[in-house]
């Protein structure tokens, strides 16, 4: 007992205090295929971590396991120090022990998707206030005010009464980022936010993301944008075949690739 108390006290005073997301030994299989083979990740408050890897390396799956859109087979996830409790399901697989806890934690981990996933039957403004009013139960007037300010910030305030299908991909993605910001999230998860965009629309989205990084937001960004990874992020993590191949400070990683796999990966990108 006393050992537990001591451990808890240590955890509270250790650098974990600053931990925004901590993943330990996460594993995930789809059928026979092991996509994540024991991934660990530590994100501190204010970190902007770019997660790189070729397709099939497990980077999106890892992100989706953090907010439990996919259920990891094993391993633990802590958000802001709080462990997401898991239990054994009837089929022997792991499942969340308390879905309320998962929903509460998800509300702190706003996600931005590759294909935007705005709710198509709501206007942009409604998209921004839906979750804050219904999930966080904040007053509607306050949410509307914040939503308008966020839309001004991402430069699409004039489109606030548009339905998503009437906007360009870049505008939709900026609306989706504003929707994420409206949650006042502790961490923002970006799942290849520019991969579905026409090349000329990538810049407008990256500019918004860069400004978020500059104001000290904690971000996990799965991306293929090498420029963003190198110049904006505070840490780069390279996944290879479901494992963490290398992690490091971006300038250093790109100047002196620590592993042959990473060297190969960036060489392919520069072709």
């Amino acid at each position, binding site marked *: 007992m006393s050992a537990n108390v001591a451990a808890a006290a240590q955890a509270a005073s250790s650098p974990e205090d600053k931990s925004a997301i901590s993943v330990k030994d996460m594993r995930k299989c789809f059928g026979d295929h092991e996509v994540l083979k024991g991934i660990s990740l530590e994100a501190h408050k204010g970190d902007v971590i770019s997660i790189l890897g070729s397709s099939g390396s497990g980077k999106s799956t890892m992100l989706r396991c953090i907010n439990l859109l996919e259920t990891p087979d094993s391993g633990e996830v802590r958000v802001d120090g709080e462990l997401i409790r898991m239990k054994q399901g009837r089929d022997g697989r792991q499942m969340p022990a308390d879905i*309320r806890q998962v929903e509460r934690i998800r509300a702190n981990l706003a996600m931005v*998707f590759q294909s935007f996933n*705005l709710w198509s039957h709501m206007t942009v403004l409604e998209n921004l206030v839906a979750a804050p009013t219904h999930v966080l139960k904040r007053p509607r007037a306050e949410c509307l005010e914040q939503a308008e300010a966020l839309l001004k910030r991402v430069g699409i305030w004039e489109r606030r009464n548009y339905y998503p299908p009437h906007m360009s991909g870049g505008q939709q993605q900026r609306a989706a980022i504003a929707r994420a910001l409206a949650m006042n999230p502790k961490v923002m998860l970006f799942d290849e936010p520019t991969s579905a965009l026409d090349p000329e629309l990538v810049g407008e989205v990256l500019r918004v993301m860069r400004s978020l990084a500059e104001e000290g937001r904690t971000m996990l960004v799965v991306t293929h944008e090498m420029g963003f990874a190198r110049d904006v992020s505070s840490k780069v993590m390279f996944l290879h075949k479901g494992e963490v191949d290398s992690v490091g400070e971006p300038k250093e990683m790109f100047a002196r690739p620590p592993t042959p796999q990473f060297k190969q990966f960036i060489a392919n990108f520069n072709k």
Partner: protein
Amino acid sequence: MEFLNDLKDQVSTAYELLAAGWGVQLLWGIAWTLAVTVVSMLIGAVLGSLVAAAKLSHRGGLRFIGESYTTVFRGEPELLIIYLFYYGGTQVLTGVARSTGSIGSTDILNMPSFLGGVLAVGIISGAYQAEVFRGSFLAIHRGELEAARAYGMSAWLRFRLVIVPQVLRLAVPGLGNVWQLTIKDSALISVTGVAELMLTANKAARSTHHSLLFYTVAGILYLVMTSVSTPIFEKAERYTSRSFTRPK
């Protein structure tokens, strides 16, 4: 000339018959037909959404119940189901009432005709609506449901804020179709004695011996009801899919 005179006679007879009270009765028939159709559609909407949910469930048992429901009630003649509910229902009610002693051993407790009728038509309508709802649910963009989960929405919030509005949008054209089917099925419950349009036209035709006249008038009235509902559903479709059509 003779033909024209004949026609004139026919028209004036028709006018007299309709003015003599049959016209008002037919209007009441329309009212009952609409009442049967609306109530059946509502019963069908409730059953249809439950059955659609069962068919989409990941539990094998529920899926089996849902599948059986749509197979049986789309696969049997409507008239048989109405007889089953009305006469079968009467038999069951009578049996129960006799055994509890609430009626005498030779008395009969009739299934109320409106209730028996709308239950039967509603159950059939529900089988078709279930397919409409199921197809609509499957057509929702998966990413939007995933976003709702990712933003911490509970199952109930996802249902209320994302699934219902989108299912309704996608279901409107299919529901327009079911509405027409249900109007036509409502004619069949004339066999239970509900004085809807079909029964009224029948009564008028038999007692006046002007079958041609009354069935034609009833036919026109059914056509008016079904064709008036088409633009209403089109309008609803335009409204619910406004986010996908270009703004003016």
